[in-house]
Protein backbone atom coordinates (compact mmCIF):
# COMPACT_ATOMS: atom_id res chain seq x y z
CA UNK A 1 0.00 0.00 0.00
CA UNK A 2 1.23 3.41 -0.86
CA UNK A 3 0.95 5.93 1.88
CA UNK A 4 0.62 9.59 1.23
CA UNK A 5 2.52 11.49 3.82
CA UNK A 6 0.09 13.18 6.14
CA UNK A 7 0.97 14.44 9.55
CA UNK A 8 -1.96 13.88 11.76
CA UNK A 9 -2.80 17.34 12.87
CA UNK A 10 -5.78 19.59 12.72
CA UNK A 11 -7.25 21.88 10.17
CA UNK A 12 -8.18 25.23 11.62
CA UNK A 13 -10.73 27.13 9.61
CA UNK A 14 -11.95 30.47 10.88
CA UNK A 15 -13.41 31.85 7.71
CA UNK A 16 -15.80 34.57 6.70
CA UNK A 17 -16.88 35.33 3.20
CA UNK A 18 -19.64 37.35 1.66
CA UNK A 19 -20.80 36.52 -1.82
CA UNK A 20 -22.96 38.75 -3.97
CA UNK A 21 -24.84 37.46 -6.94
CA UNK A 22 -27.22 40.04 -8.25
CA UNK A 23 -29.24 41.28 -5.31
CA UNK A 24 -28.63 38.07 -3.37
CA UNK A 25 -26.10 38.23 -0.58
CA UNK A 26 -24.78 35.08 1.00
CA UNK A 27 -22.66 35.10 4.13
CA UNK A 28 -20.60 32.20 5.35
CA UNK A 29 -19.10 32.20 8.81
CA UNK A 30 -17.23 29.13 9.96
CA UNK A 31 -15.11 28.69 13.06
CA UNK A 32 -14.13 25.09 13.03
CA UNK A 33 -11.30 22.84 13.91
CA UNK A 34 -11.35 19.36 12.55
CA UNK A 35 -8.94 16.46 12.35
CA UNK A 36 -6.91 16.20 9.19
CA UNK A 37 -7.23 12.45 9.25
CA UNK A 38 -10.02 10.25 8.03
CA UNK A 39 -13.03 11.54 6.19
CA UNK A 40 -14.68 14.74 7.35
CA UNK A 41 -18.11 15.25 5.86
CA UNK A 42 -19.67 18.67 5.40
CA UNK A 43 -23.40 18.13 5.45
CA UNK A 44 -26.12 20.60 4.63
CA UNK A 45 -29.00 21.24 2.28
CA UNK A 46 -28.39 23.18 -0.92
CA UNK A 47 -27.61 26.82 -0.23
CA UNK A 48 -26.15 26.08 3.19
CA UNK A 49 -22.64 27.11 2.10
CA UNK A 50 -20.99 23.70 1.83
CA UNK A 51 -19.46 24.32 -1.56
CA UNK A 52 -18.47 27.86 -0.59
CA UNK A 53 -16.61 26.48 2.44
CA UNK A 54 -14.71 24.03 0.24
CA UNK A 55 -13.92 26.77 -2.27
CA UNK A 56 -12.56 28.94 0.55
CA UNK A 57 -10.36 26.09 1.73
CA UNK A 58 -9.12 25.53 -1.84
CA UNK A 59 -8.47 29.26 -2.34
CA UNK A 60 -10.99 29.53 -5.16
CA UNK A 61 -13.13 32.09 -3.33
CA UNK A 62 -11.23 35.34 -3.57
CA UNK A 63 -13.41 37.10 -1.01
CA UNK A 64 -12.51 34.66 1.79
CA UNK A 65 -11.09 36.27 4.92
CA UNK A 66 -9.92 34.96 8.24
CA UNK A 67 -7.51 32.22 9.20
CA UNK A 68 -6.94 28.89 7.53
CA UNK A 69 -4.27 26.53 8.79
CA UNK A 70 -3.64 23.00 7.70
CA UNK A 71 -1.27 21.36 10.14
CA UNK A 72 1.71 23.71 10.38
CA UNK A 73 1.02 25.49 7.11
CA UNK A 74 -0.94 28.72 7.01
CA UNK A 75 -2.93 29.15 3.81
CA UNK A 76 -4.79 32.29 4.76
CA UNK A 77 -4.36 34.98 7.38
CA UNK A 78 -4.45 38.78 7.53
CA UNK A 79 -1.33 39.17 5.45
CA UNK A 80 -1.06 36.17 3.18
CA UNK A 81 -3.25 34.21 0.88
CA UNK A 82 -1.57 31.20 -0.66
CA UNK A 83 -2.84 30.86 -4.23
CA UNK A 84 -4.79 27.74 -5.15
CA UNK A 85 -1.98 26.31 -7.27
CA UNK A 86 0.34 26.24 -4.25
CA UNK A 87 -2.12 24.58 -1.87
CA UNK A 88 -1.44 20.89 -1.81
CA UNK A 89 -4.97 19.74 -2.32
CA UNK A 90 -6.76 17.48 -4.71
CA UNK A 91 -10.17 18.85 -5.63
CA UNK A 92 -12.94 16.77 -7.15
CA UNK A 93 -15.67 19.02 -8.52
CA UNK A 94 -19.33 18.14 -8.66
CA UNK A 95 -19.17 18.29 -12.45
CA UNK A 96 -15.81 16.47 -12.89
CA UNK A 97 -14.32 19.31 -14.99
CA UNK A 98 -12.09 17.11 -17.11
CA UNK A 99 -10.20 19.01 -19.80
CA UNK A 100 -12.20 18.49 -22.98
CA UNK A 101 -9.17 18.88 -25.25
CA UNK A 102 -7.31 16.01 -23.61
CA UNK A 103 -8.15 12.33 -23.46
CA UNK A 104 -8.24 10.47 -20.15
CA UNK A 105 -4.52 9.78 -20.23
CA UNK A 106 -3.82 13.43 -21.07
CA UNK A 107 -5.94 14.55 -18.14
CA UNK A 108 -4.02 12.27 -15.79
CA UNK A 109 -0.66 13.38 -17.23
CA UNK A 110 -1.66 17.01 -16.66
CA UNK A 111 -1.75 16.27 -12.93
CA UNK A 112 1.37 14.09 -12.88
CA UNK A 113 3.48 16.77 -14.62
CA UNK A 114 2.46 19.35 -12.03
CA UNK A 115 2.72 17.25 -8.90
CA UNK A 116 5.16 18.65 -6.36
CA UNK A 117 6.31 15.14 -5.63
CA UNK A 118 7.43 12.61 -8.22
CA UNK A 119 4.64 10.20 -9.14
CA UNK A 120 6.04 6.69 -9.15
CA UNK A 121 4.87 4.19 -11.77
CA UNK A 122 3.59 1.92 -9.02
CA UNK A 123 1.48 4.69 -7.53
CA UNK A 124 0.06 5.55 -10.94
CA UNK A 125 -0.84 1.91 -11.53
CA UNK A 126 -2.42 1.69 -8.10
CA UNK A 127 -4.61 4.75 -8.67
CA UNK A 128 -5.65 3.59 -12.15
CA UNK A 129 -6.51 0.16 -10.76
CA UNK A 130 -8.27 1.48 -7.69
CA UNK A 131 -10.63 3.52 -9.85
CA UNK A 132 -10.78 0.95 -12.63
CA UNK A 133 -10.14 3.37 -15.50
CA UNK A 134 -7.31 1.53 -17.29
CA UNK A 135 -9.55 0.70 -20.26
CA UNK A 136 -10.62 4.32 -20.75
CA UNK A 137 -7.19 5.91 -21.36
CA UNK A 138 -7.71 6.83 -25.03
CA UNK A 139 -11.27 8.12 -24.54
CA UNK A 140 -12.13 11.80 -24.72
CA UNK A 141 -14.21 13.14 -21.80
CA UNK A 142 -17.35 13.44 -23.96
CA UNK A 143 -17.20 9.69 -24.59
CA UNK A 144 -17.39 8.84 -20.88
CA UNK A 145 -20.45 8.21 -18.73
CA UNK A 146 -21.03 10.44 -15.71
CA UNK A 147 -19.66 7.82 -13.32
CA UNK A 148 -16.56 7.24 -15.45
CA UNK A 149 -15.89 10.98 -15.68
CA UNK A 150 -16.09 11.26 -11.91
CA UNK A 151 -13.71 8.31 -11.42
CA UNK A 152 -11.20 9.89 -13.82
CA UNK A 153 -11.55 13.19 -11.98
CA UNK A 154 -10.82 11.46 -8.67
CA UNK A 155 -7.79 9.71 -10.16
CA UNK A 156 -6.56 13.02 -11.57
CA UNK A 157 -6.92 14.68 -8.17
CA UNK A 158 -4.98 11.85 -6.49
CA UNK A 159 -2.16 11.96 -9.05
CA UNK A 160 -1.22 15.51 -8.11
CA UNK A 161 -0.19 13.85 -4.81
CA UNK A 162 -2.22 16.09 -2.53
CA UNK A 163 -1.95 16.24 1.24
CA UNK A 164 -5.73 16.46 1.42
CA UNK A 165 -8.50 15.40 -0.93
CA UNK A 166 -11.49 17.70 -1.27
CA UNK A 167 -14.66 16.33 -2.80
CA UNK A 168 -17.64 18.47 -3.65
CA UNK A 169 -20.67 16.19 -3.93
CA UNK A 170 -18.90 13.90 -6.37
CA UNK A 171 -22.04 11.78 -6.64
CA UNK A 172 -24.65 14.54 -6.89
CA UNK A 173 -24.74 14.70 -10.67
CA UNK A 174 -25.13 10.93 -11.01
CA UNK A 175 -28.28 8.84 -11.05
CA UNK A 176 -28.67 6.06 -8.52
CA UNK A 177 -27.17 3.32 -10.65
CA UNK A 178 -24.15 5.49 -11.47
CA UNK A 179 -23.76 6.37 -7.79
CA UNK A 180 -23.22 2.71 -7.10
CA UNK A 181 -20.48 2.85 -9.77
CA UNK A 182 -18.51 5.35 -7.72
CA UNK A 183 -19.46 4.93 -4.06
CA UNK A 184 -17.51 1.71 -3.43
CA UNK A 185 -14.38 3.37 -4.87
CA UNK A 186 -14.75 6.29 -2.47
CA UNK A 187 -15.05 3.99 0.50
CA UNK A 188 -11.92 2.13 -0.61
CA UNK A 189 -9.85 5.26 -1.25
CA UNK A 190 -9.50 6.17 2.37
CA UNK A 191 -8.25 2.69 3.25
CA UNK A 192 -5.82 2.59 0.35
CA UNK A 193 -4.26 6.02 0.37
CA UNK A 194 -4.69 7.17 3.99
CA UNK A 195 -5.45 10.61 2.70
CA UNK A 196 -7.45 13.05 4.80
CA UNK A 197 -10.65 13.83 2.93
CA UNK A 198 -13.18 16.62 3.06
CA UNK A 199 -16.42 15.36 1.62
CA UNK A 200 -19.38 17.61 0.89
CA UNK A 201 -22.78 16.05 0.63
CA UNK A 202 -26.44 16.68 1.23
CA UNK A 203 -27.07 12.96 1.55
CA UNK A 204 -27.04 11.65 5.12
CA UNK A 205 -26.84 8.17 3.67
CA UNK A 206 -23.52 8.89 1.93
CA UNK A 207 -22.21 10.73 4.95
CA UNK A 208 -23.06 7.91 7.36
CA UNK A 209 -21.47 5.46 5.00
CA UNK A 210 -18.20 7.28 4.49
CA UNK A 211 -17.44 9.84 7.15
CA UNK A 212 -15.65 9.70 10.50
CA UNK A 213 -16.29 13.31 11.38
CA UNK A 214 -19.06 15.62 10.33
CA UNK A 215 -19.77 19.35 10.18
CA UNK A 216 -23.41 20.32 9.68
CA UNK A 217 -23.97 23.66 7.95
CA UNK A 218 -27.18 25.62 7.81
CA UNK A 219 -27.53 29.02 6.13
CA UNK A 220 -23.82 29.66 6.19
CA UNK A 221 -23.29 28.72 9.84
CA UNK A 222 -22.03 25.62 11.58
CA UNK A 223 -24.94 24.05 13.45
CA UNK A 224 -23.14 21.12 14.98
CA UNK A 225 -19.96 19.16 14.47
CA UNK A 226 -18.15 16.21 15.93
CA UNK A 227 -17.56 12.55 15.37
CA UNK A 228 -20.14 11.03 13.08
CA UNK A 229 -21.76 9.02 15.83
CA UNK A 230 -21.95 11.90 18.29
CA UNK A 231 -23.56 14.17 15.72
CA UNK A 232 -26.10 11.68 14.40
CA UNK A 233 -27.03 10.34 17.81
CA UNK A 234 -27.69 13.76 19.23
CA UNK A 235 -30.75 15.94 19.39
CA UNK A 236 -28.65 18.78 17.94
CA UNK A 237 -29.25 17.72 14.36
CA UNK A 238 -31.03 20.54 12.52
CA UNK A 239 -34.72 20.14 11.96
CA UNK A 240 -34.53 18.89 8.37
CA UNK A 241 -32.36 15.98 9.49
CA UNK A 242 -34.45 15.08 12.56
CA UNK A 243 -35.72 11.93 10.90
CA UNK A 244 -32.12 10.91 10.22
CA UNK A 245 -31.09 10.79 13.87
CA UNK A 246 -29.40 7.45 14.27
CA UNK A 247 -26.83 5.30 16.00
CA UNK A 248 -23.78 4.27 14.01
CA UNK A 249 -22.05 1.11 15.07
CA UNK A 250 -18.88 -0.66 14.07
CA UNK A 251 -19.55 -4.35 14.54
CA UNK A 252 -17.74 -7.59 13.81
CA UNK A 253 -19.38 -10.65 12.26
CA UNK A 254 -18.91 -13.52 14.69
CA UNK A 255 -21.35 -16.24 13.70
CA UNK A 256 -23.40 -17.44 10.75
CA UNK A 257 -26.83 -19.03 10.89
CA UNK A 258 -27.14 -20.85 7.57
CA UNK A 259 -30.69 -21.97 8.24
CA UNK A 260 -32.24 -18.53 8.60
CA UNK A 261 -29.76 -16.66 6.42
CA UNK A 262 -28.63 -14.51 9.28
CA UNK A 263 -25.32 -13.46 10.73
CA UNK A 264 -24.55 -12.39 14.25
CA UNK A 265 -22.55 -9.21 14.74
CA UNK A 266 -20.86 -8.21 17.97
CA UNK A 267 -20.18 -4.66 19.15
CA UNK A 268 -19.00 -3.43 22.53
CA UNK A 269 -20.42 -6.45 24.38
CA UNK A 270 -23.82 -6.54 22.66
CA UNK A 271 -24.90 -8.52 19.61
CA UNK A 272 -27.27 -7.98 16.69
CA UNK A 273 -28.70 -10.33 14.09
CA UNK A 274 -28.26 -9.12 10.51
CA UNK A 275 -29.29 -10.44 7.14
CA UNK A 276 -26.64 -12.62 5.61
CA UNK A 277 -25.08 -10.85 2.62
CA UNK A 278 -22.14 -13.24 2.51
CA UNK A 279 -20.16 -11.27 5.03
CA UNK A 280 -17.15 -13.32 6.10
CA UNK A 281 -16.77 -14.16 9.77
CA UNK A 282 -14.37 -11.69 11.37
CA UNK A 283 -15.29 -8.88 8.96
CA UNK A 284 -15.98 -5.44 10.38
CA UNK A 285 -19.21 -3.82 9.23
CA UNK A 286 -20.61 -0.35 9.67
CA UNK A 287 -24.22 -0.37 10.83
CA UNK A 288 -26.79 2.34 11.06
CA UNK A 289 -29.86 2.16 13.27
CA UNK A 290 -32.28 5.01 12.63
CA UNK A 291 -33.64 6.30 15.93
CA UNK A 292 -37.24 6.08 14.78
CA UNK A 293 -36.70 2.38 14.03
CA UNK A 294 -36.07 1.75 17.73
CA UNK A 295 -39.00 1.30 20.10
CA UNK A 296 -38.82 0.87 23.86
CA UNK A 297 -40.38 -1.66 26.13
CA UNK A 298 -40.32 -2.12 29.88
CA UNK A 299 -39.88 -5.86 29.55
CA UNK A 300 -38.24 -8.22 27.11
CA UNK A 301 -41.09 -8.97 24.73
CA UNK A 302 -40.13 -12.43 23.59
CA UNK A 303 -43.46 -12.85 21.81
CA UNK A 304 -42.60 -10.33 19.17
CA UNK A 305 -41.36 -10.46 15.58
CA UNK A 306 -38.57 -8.13 16.48
CA UNK A 307 -35.38 -10.13 16.54
CA UNK A 308 -33.00 -7.58 17.94
CA UNK A 309 -33.86 -6.59 21.52
CA UNK A 310 -31.11 -5.02 23.57
CA UNK A 311 -31.24 -4.57 27.32
CA UNK A 312 -30.02 -1.34 28.80
CA UNK A 313 -30.71 1.62 31.02
CA UNK A 314 -32.05 5.02 30.06
CA UNK A 315 -29.08 7.36 29.98
CA UNK A 316 -30.87 10.50 28.91
CA UNK A 317 -34.13 11.91 27.58
CA UNK A 318 -34.18 14.97 25.36
CA UNK A 319 -37.59 16.35 24.66
CA UNK A 320 -38.30 18.31 21.51
CA UNK A 321 -40.35 21.13 23.00
CA UNK A 322 -41.81 22.15 19.68
CA UNK A 323 -42.73 18.66 18.54
CA UNK A 324 -44.30 15.41 19.53
CA UNK A 325 -41.10 13.45 19.92
CA UNK A 326 -38.29 12.84 22.35
CA UNK A 327 -34.86 11.33 21.88
CA UNK A 328 -34.01 8.66 24.43
CA UNK A 329 -30.43 7.51 24.90
CA UNK A 330 -30.07 3.96 26.19
CA UNK A 331 -26.82 2.88 27.81
CA UNK A 332 -25.94 -0.61 26.64
CA UNK A 333 -23.04 -2.78 27.86
CA UNK A 334 -20.31 -0.43 26.66
CA UNK A 335 -22.07 1.76 24.15
CA UNK A 336 -25.22 3.74 23.53
CA UNK A 337 -28.17 3.60 21.20
CA UNK A 338 -30.75 6.30 20.54
CA UNK A 339 -34.49 5.85 20.14
CA UNK A 340 -36.97 8.38 18.89
CA UNK A 341 -40.33 7.95 20.65
CA UNK A 342 -43.34 10.15 21.23
CA UNK A 343 -43.52 12.39 24.27
CA UNK A 344 -46.84 10.75 25.02
CA UNK A 345 -45.19 7.31 25.33
CA UNK A 346 -42.62 8.73 27.73
CA UNK A 347 -45.42 10.06 29.84
CA UNK A 348 -47.56 6.90 29.59
CA UNK A 349 -44.70 4.58 30.58
CA UNK A 350 -43.28 7.04 33.16
CA UNK A 351 -39.86 6.72 31.51
CA UNK A 352 -37.05 8.22 33.55
CA UNK A 353 -33.26 8.29 33.49
CA UNK A 354 -31.81 5.19 35.12
CA UNK A 355 -34.73 2.88 34.33
CA UNK A 356 -34.08 -0.57 32.96
CA UNK A 357 -35.41 -0.85 29.41
CA UNK A 358 -35.39 -3.00 26.29
CA UNK A 359 -34.63 -1.38 22.96
CA UNK A 360 -36.43 -3.15 20.12
CA UNK A 361 -34.70 -2.59 16.83
CA UNK A 362 -36.89 -2.92 13.78
CA UNK A 363 -34.20 -2.57 11.17
CA UNK A 364 -30.46 -2.29 10.84
CA UNK A 365 -28.87 -0.90 7.72
CA UNK A 366 -25.53 -2.37 6.75
CA UNK A 367 -23.55 0.53 5.31
CA UNK A 368 -20.22 -1.00 4.45
Amino acid at each position, binding site marked *: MTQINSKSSTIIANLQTTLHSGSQVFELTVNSEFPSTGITAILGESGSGKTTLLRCIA*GLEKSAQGLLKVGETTWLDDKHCVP*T*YEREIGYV*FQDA*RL*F*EHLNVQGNLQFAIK*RSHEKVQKAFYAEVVNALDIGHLMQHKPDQLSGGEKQRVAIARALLVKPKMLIMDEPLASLDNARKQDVLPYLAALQNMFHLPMLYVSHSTDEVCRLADHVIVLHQGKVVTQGSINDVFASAQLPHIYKQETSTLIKAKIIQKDERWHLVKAEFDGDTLWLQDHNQAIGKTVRLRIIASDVSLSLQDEKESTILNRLEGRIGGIEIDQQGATALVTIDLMNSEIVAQVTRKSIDDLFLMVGMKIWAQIKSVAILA
Partner: protein
Amino acid sequence: MGLTDSDINAIWLTIKLAFTVTIILLIVGTPIAVWLAKTKSWLRGPINAIVALPLVLPPTVLGFYLLIAMGPDGPIGQLTEHLGLGLLPFTFWGLVIASLFYSLPFVVQPIQNAVEAIGKKPLEAAATLHSKPMDTFFHVILPLARPGFISAAILGFAHTVGEFGIVLMIGGNIPAETKVVSIQIYDQVEALEYAGAHRLSAIMLGFSFIALLLLYSFQKRGIATKFRIGR
Protein backbone atom coordinates in the same frame (compact mmCIF):
# COMPACT_ATOMS: atom_id res chain seq x y z
CA MET B 1 -5.94 32.94 -66.87
CA GLY B 2 -4.36 35.84 -68.66
CA LEU B 3 -3.28 37.80 -65.62
CA THR B 4 -0.98 40.71 -66.31
CA ASP B 5 2.24 41.30 -64.36
CA SER B 6 0.51 44.16 -62.66
CA ASP B 7 -2.33 41.81 -61.60
CA ILE B 8 0.14 39.29 -60.20
CA ASN B 9 2.00 42.04 -58.36
CA ALA B 10 -1.28 43.15 -56.81
CA ILE B 11 -2.23 39.62 -55.78
CA TRP B 12 1.20 38.96 -54.29
CA LEU B 13 1.14 42.26 -52.43
CA THR B 14 -2.37 41.57 -51.10
CA ILE B 15 -1.35 38.16 -49.79
CA LYS B 16 1.80 39.58 -48.21
CA LEU B 17 -0.20 42.35 -46.54
CA ALA B 18 -2.95 40.05 -45.27
CA PHE B 19 -0.44 37.51 -43.99
CA THR B 20 1.66 40.12 -42.16
CA VAL B 21 -1.40 41.77 -40.64
CA THR B 22 -2.94 38.44 -39.52
CA ILE B 23 0.25 37.28 -37.80
CA ILE B 24 0.73 40.61 -36.00
CA LEU B 25 -2.94 40.77 -35.00
CA LEU B 26 -2.92 37.23 -33.57
CA ILE B 27 0.02 38.22 -31.40
CA VAL B 28 -1.28 41.65 -30.39
CA GLY B 29 -4.97 40.76 -30.36
CA THR B 30 -4.69 37.71 -28.10
CA PRO B 31 -3.74 39.54 -24.89
CA ILE B 32 -6.40 42.18 -25.61
CA ALA B 33 -9.02 39.48 -26.22
CA VAL B 34 -8.08 37.49 -23.12
CA TRP B 35 -8.07 40.63 -20.99
CA LEU B 36 -11.48 41.67 -22.32
CA ALA B 37 -12.86 38.17 -21.69
CA LYS B 38 -11.70 38.10 -18.09
CA THR B 39 -11.61 41.61 -16.72
CA LYS B 40 -14.16 43.10 -14.40
CA SER B 41 -12.57 46.56 -14.78
CA TRP B 42 -14.73 49.50 -15.79
CA LEU B 43 -12.36 49.90 -18.75
CA ARG B 44 -13.90 46.81 -20.32
CA GLY B 45 -16.76 48.75 -21.89
CA PRO B 46 -14.66 51.55 -23.39
CA ILE B 47 -11.98 49.17 -24.69
CA ASN B 48 -14.62 46.91 -26.21
CA ALA B 49 -16.10 49.93 -27.95
CA ILE B 50 -12.74 51.12 -29.26
CA VAL B 51 -11.91 47.66 -30.59
CA ALA B 52 -15.29 47.50 -32.35
CA LEU B 53 -15.10 51.03 -33.83
CA PRO B 54 -13.74 49.96 -37.24
CA LEU B 55 -16.91 47.88 -37.67
CA VAL B 56 -19.06 50.98 -37.86
CA LEU B 57 -16.71 53.81 -38.88
CA PRO B 58 -16.43 54.58 -42.59
CA PRO B 59 -12.93 53.48 -43.67
CA THR B 60 -12.38 57.02 -44.88
CA VAL B 61 -12.72 58.40 -41.37
CA LEU B 62 -10.31 55.87 -39.93
CA GLY B 63 -7.99 56.43 -42.88
CA PHE B 64 -8.15 60.19 -42.46
CA TYR B 65 -7.15 60.09 -38.80
CA LEU B 66 -4.41 57.56 -39.45
CA LEU B 67 -3.10 59.67 -42.30
CA ILE B 68 -2.81 62.61 -39.97
CA ALA B 69 -1.29 60.54 -37.18
CA MET B 70 1.30 59.08 -39.53
CA GLY B 71 2.04 62.42 -41.18
CA PRO B 72 5.04 64.62 -40.29
CA ASP B 73 3.10 66.38 -37.50
CA GLY B 74 1.30 63.29 -36.15
CA PRO B 75 2.54 61.24 -33.18
CA ILE B 76 3.16 58.11 -35.23
CA GLY B 77 4.88 60.13 -37.93
CA GLN B 78 7.17 61.86 -35.44
CA LEU B 79 8.00 58.55 -33.85
CA THR B 80 8.85 56.85 -37.15
CA GLU B 81 10.93 59.81 -38.25
CA HIS B 82 12.70 59.85 -34.92
CA LEU B 83 13.49 56.16 -35.38
CA GLY B 84 14.86 56.89 -38.83
CA LEU B 85 12.09 54.99 -40.61
CA GLY B 86 10.77 57.97 -42.52
CA LEU B 87 7.09 58.61 -42.98
CA LEU B 88 4.69 55.70 -43.36
CA PRO B 89 1.84 56.96 -45.55
CA PHE B 90 2.04 55.58 -49.09
CA THR B 91 4.32 52.74 -48.01
CA PHE B 92 3.68 49.04 -47.44
CA TRP B 93 4.20 49.37 -43.67
CA GLY B 94 1.81 52.28 -43.56
CA LEU B 95 -0.78 49.94 -45.06
CA VAL B 96 0.11 47.31 -42.47
CA ILE B 97 -0.49 49.75 -39.60
CA ALA B 98 -3.77 50.96 -41.05
CA SER B 99 -4.93 47.39 -41.61
CA LEU B 100 -4.04 46.46 -38.03
CA PHE B 101 -6.60 48.96 -36.79
CA TYR B 102 -9.10 48.14 -39.48
CA SER B 103 -9.06 44.35 -38.95
CA LEU B 104 -8.60 44.39 -35.18
CA PRO B 105 -12.22 43.54 -34.22
CA PHE B 106 -12.29 40.62 -36.64
CA VAL B 107 -9.40 39.01 -34.79
CA VAL B 108 -10.12 40.11 -31.21
CA GLN B 109 -13.81 39.25 -31.07
CA PRO B 110 -13.66 35.55 -32.08
CA ILE B 111 -10.83 34.97 -29.61
CA GLN B 112 -12.66 36.90 -26.91
CA ASN B 113 -15.84 34.88 -27.52
CA ALA B 114 -13.92 31.61 -27.38
CA VAL B 115 -12.18 32.53 -24.13
CA GLU B 116 -15.46 33.69 -22.58
CA ALA B 117 -17.06 30.40 -23.62
CA ILE B 118 -14.40 28.45 -21.72
CA GLY B 119 -15.56 30.07 -18.50
CA LYS B 120 -13.72 29.77 -15.22
CA LYS B 121 -14.44 26.11 -14.52
CA PRO B 122 -11.52 24.53 -16.41
CA LEU B 123 -9.26 27.28 -15.09
CA GLU B 124 -10.20 26.50 -11.49
CA ALA B 125 -9.66 22.81 -12.16
CA ALA B 126 -6.21 23.62 -13.55
CA ALA B 127 -5.34 25.71 -10.48
CA THR B 128 -6.23 22.83 -8.16
CA LEU B 129 -3.82 20.72 -10.22
CA HIS B 130 -0.96 23.11 -9.35
CA SER B 131 -1.05 24.88 -12.70
CA LYS B 132 0.19 28.47 -12.47
CA PRO B 133 -1.64 31.18 -14.46
CA MET B 134 0.78 31.23 -17.43
CA ASP B 135 0.88 27.45 -17.48
CA THR B 136 -2.92 27.43 -17.55
CA PHE B 137 -2.91 29.99 -20.35
CA PHE B 138 -0.71 27.88 -22.61
CA HIS B 139 -2.03 24.43 -21.73
CA VAL B 140 -5.72 25.01 -21.05
CA ILE B 141 -6.93 28.34 -22.47
CA LEU B 142 -5.02 28.22 -25.78
CA PRO B 143 -5.99 24.67 -26.73
CA LEU B 144 -9.60 25.09 -25.63
CA ALA B 145 -9.88 28.39 -27.54
CA ARG B 146 -8.23 27.00 -30.68
CA PRO B 147 -11.47 27.20 -32.71
CA GLY B 148 -11.66 30.90 -31.85
CA PHE B 149 -8.10 31.38 -33.09
CA ILE B 150 -8.92 29.60 -36.35
CA SER B 151 -11.94 31.86 -36.86
CA ALA B 152 -9.87 34.90 -35.96
CA ALA B 153 -7.12 34.01 -38.45
CA ILE B 154 -9.57 33.32 -41.30
CA LEU B 155 -11.58 36.48 -40.66
CA GLY B 156 -8.54 38.70 -40.10
CA PHE B 157 -6.93 37.47 -43.33
CA ALA B 158 -10.09 37.67 -45.44
CA HIS B 159 -11.05 41.07 -44.13
CA THR B 160 -7.60 42.51 -44.83
CA VAL B 161 -7.72 41.10 -48.36
CA GLY B 162 -11.09 42.78 -48.87
CA GLU B 163 -10.27 46.30 -47.67
CA PHE B 164 -10.41 49.21 -50.04
CA GLY B 165 -11.27 52.59 -48.62
CA ILE B 166 -8.57 52.75 -46.02
CA VAL B 167 -5.96 51.54 -48.50
CA LEU B 168 -6.91 54.34 -50.82
CA MET B 169 -6.56 56.87 -47.99
CA ILE B 170 -3.24 55.60 -46.61
CA GLY B 171 -1.60 53.70 -49.42
CA GLY B 172 -2.64 55.41 -52.54
CA ASN B 173 -1.86 53.58 -55.69
CA ILE B 174 1.81 52.65 -55.97
CA PRO B 175 2.44 49.45 -57.96
CA ALA B 176 4.10 46.63 -55.96
CA GLU B 177 4.15 48.87 -52.88
CA THR B 178 0.55 49.73 -52.03
CA LYS B 179 -1.53 48.68 -55.01
CA VAL B 180 -3.55 45.74 -53.66
CA VAL B 181 -6.11 43.73 -55.64
CA SER B 182 -9.12 45.85 -54.69
CA ILE B 183 -7.34 49.01 -55.91
CA GLN B 184 -6.19 47.27 -59.05
CA ILE B 185 -9.81 46.38 -59.84
CA TYR B 186 -10.84 49.97 -59.21
CA ASP B 187 -8.14 51.18 -61.59
CA GLN B 188 -9.17 48.71 -64.25
CA VAL B 189 -12.80 49.76 -64.04
CA GLU B 190 -11.80 53.42 -64.17
CA ALA B 191 -9.81 52.65 -67.30
CA LEU B 192 -12.76 50.66 -68.70
CA GLU B 193 -10.63 47.46 -68.78
CA TYR B 194 -13.58 45.28 -67.88
CA ALA B 195 -11.93 42.00 -68.89
CA GLY B 196 -9.15 42.54 -66.35
CA ALA B 197 -11.61 43.66 -63.70
CA HIS B 198 -13.65 40.51 -64.33
CA ARG B 199 -10.68 38.24 -63.82
CA LEU B 200 -9.58 39.77 -60.54
CA SER B 201 -13.13 40.16 -59.25
CA ALA B 202 -13.79 36.49 -59.94
CA ILE B 203 -10.66 35.57 -58.03
CA MET B 204 -11.73 37.74 -55.08
CA LEU B 205 -15.23 36.29 -55.14
CA GLY B 206 -13.88 32.75 -55.16
CA PHE B 207 -11.41 33.47 -52.38
CA SER B 208 -13.98 35.14 -50.14
CA PHE B 209 -16.46 32.34 -50.67
CA ILE B 210 -13.89 29.68 -49.79
CA ALA B 211 -12.76 31.59 -46.70
CA LEU B 212 -16.33 31.86 -45.42
CA LEU B 213 -17.07 28.26 -46.37
CA LEU B 214 -14.07 27.17 -44.29
CA LEU B 215 -15.26 29.29 -41.39
CA TYR B 216 -18.80 28.00 -41.39
CA SER B 217 -17.87 24.38 -41.95
CA PHE B 218 -15.64 24.63 -38.88
CA GLN B 219 -18.59 26.03 -37.00
CA LYS B 220 -20.91 23.28 -38.20
CA ARG B 221 -18.64 20.68 -36.69
CA GLY B 222 -18.63 22.65 -33.50
CA ILE B 223 -14.94 23.33 -33.84
CA ALA B 224 -15.16 27.08 -34.18
CA THR B 225 -17.08 29.21 -31.79
CA LYS B 226 -19.94 31.06 -33.39
CA PHE B 227 -18.89 34.04 -35.40
CA ARG B 228 -20.60 36.96 -33.75
CA ILE B 229 -19.39 40.31 -34.81
CA GLY B 230 -20.42 43.60 -33.29
CA ARG B 231 -21.52 41.79 -30.13
